């Protein structure tokens, strides 16, 4: 029997990593699938998943994708079971609204996030982009994020402390070609750390300048006073 513990646990925070985004593959005019509208240039799939294929069904009940209403018939696509993904073909990039629904035990409202569907290469300089276009390379645009359950209900706490994991996989140990690994976090932390260091250095320099200027100003004030008095 499902537990009816709606009491929230004060001060407790639990998170789970998720990955959402899309992959798009340009359509080869020679191998255009039958039934695809003539103006569609890409096949794409938008999805919400766990890191490295981890299960997310213990906290996500269903996922709703809202596609471009003018282009797609029945633009609201709801998925109650994994994989939480929608595959379509199209010609344009647009923003997709993703609504995550949680299990009733969690007593949480649905959470909405947005993903801008990427069809065209966007990483690298012009030459690289051109090469990617010519080779019809698949375009991937995935985002890492974490769902933070602040003060979860007791029932949700039970679920989140018995299933799944919050840990990021290590680079060499992923089952899929996963970009969101522990090393990626380390790189990000290093970059932020380096930025912080640079800023700190600037702050230090500015402080020194400030001190010097203050001294200068104080001296000038003194001299001005002396001149006024004499």
């Amino acid at each position, binding site marked *: 029997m499902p*537990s*009816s513990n709606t009491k929230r646990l004060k001060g407790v925070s639990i998170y789970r990593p998720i990955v959402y985004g899309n992959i798009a593959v340009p359509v080869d005019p020679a191998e255009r699938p039958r039934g695809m509208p003539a103006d569609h240039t890409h096949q794409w799939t938008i999805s919400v998943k766990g890191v490295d294929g981890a299960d997310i069904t213990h906290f996500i009940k269903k996922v709703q994708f809202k596609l471009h209403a003018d282009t797609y018939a029945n633009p609201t696509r709801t998925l109650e079971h994994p994989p939480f993904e929608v595959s379509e073909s199209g010609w344009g990039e647009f923003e997709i609204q993703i609504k995550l629904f949680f299990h009733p035990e969690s007593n949480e409202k649905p959470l909405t996030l947005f993903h801008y569907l990427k069809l065209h290469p966007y990483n690298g300089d012009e030459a690289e982009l051109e090469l990617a276009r010519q080779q019809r390379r698949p375009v991937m645009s995935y985002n890492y994020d*974490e769902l933070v*359950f602040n003060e979860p209900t007791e029932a949700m706490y039970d679920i989140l402390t018995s299933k799944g994991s919050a840990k990021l996989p290590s680079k060499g140990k992923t089952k899929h070609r996963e970009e969101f690994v522990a090393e990626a976090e380390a790189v990000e932390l290093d*970059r932020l750390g380096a930025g912080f260091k640079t800023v700190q250095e600037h*702050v230090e320099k500015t402080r020194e300048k400030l001190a010097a200027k203050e001294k200068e*100003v104080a001296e000038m004030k003194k001299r001005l006073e002396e*001149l006024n008095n004499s």
Partner: protein
Amino acid sequence: MLKNDDWSREETDYLFSMCREYDLRFPIIWDRYEWPSKQRSLEDLKARYYASCRSLMELRTPMGQMSPEVLNQFNLYNFDKEREVMRRSMAERQFNKTQQQFAEEEMLLTELKRIVANQEKMFEERRDFYQRLNFPTTTGSIQPYTGSQGLAHLRDMMLSSSDKSKKRKSVALGQGSGADAAQQTPTSANSIDRPGIGGSAKEKDGKDLKRQVRKLTQEEEQLYGVSYHEKLSSGVKLRSGMVASNVKGATAAKVATALTQLGIAPRLTMPTASAVQRYEQLQNAVGVLLDSKKLLDKLEQEARVLKAQLELKEG
């Protein structure tokens, strides 16, 4: 003591002589028993015989002085006529039952079992349903609550979702059942379910106690991403949206520009807890840097003015 309004001395003597003659085989005694103007049943005879025996025994030795064996005997002679009559009539009825009646009885028993089992299932389902009502989704329309039955559900839902004292809840429910009596379907449904709700509440309390005891090891906390904080706003959030912005308006734009100059995108690639923390740290530092630069600008301005004044005086 031996006297009995229904039994004369002579008839009792006759009974005892018969008992002696047929060696206490009561069915035979009853068969041969003939006393004018009296119709005695087997139980009548037995009752009279045992009662007389008990009385005689007690007359010969008072109960307090009887030896254990005799007392045992004395107690064995305690014949309950009513019960014996009932037992016999029941046995007789059982004996007279036809095969068909047996089959019917068996069928009824299984039917009863089935109903009881179904009832439990129904309770379960109803509990489930009520639980669902505890978590109203915001997207749902108000359509389900428009009927009178729906309103009753809504009321129950609101009562159970409010964390007020249970006492108040039960009082309110008690009043509610009176109002419900007018409507037929909800009444029966609600009244059946109430014990179920109470039961689950009790169960919940039990679990609460257990929960408080439950602690995670440090490893488990890391594995499941559990952390503890002083202040939290409850609810589910995206980590990327949890970056506290301690800078506002124009300064925020300046901070963003500064970060871009540092080669740090406004959006984190890996918005983990530590990344968010570092990002905030960085943002703070940039804020401090901007503030001190502003201060420096002011001082420089002041210095320029002073310098001009000095030059004027000295020159």
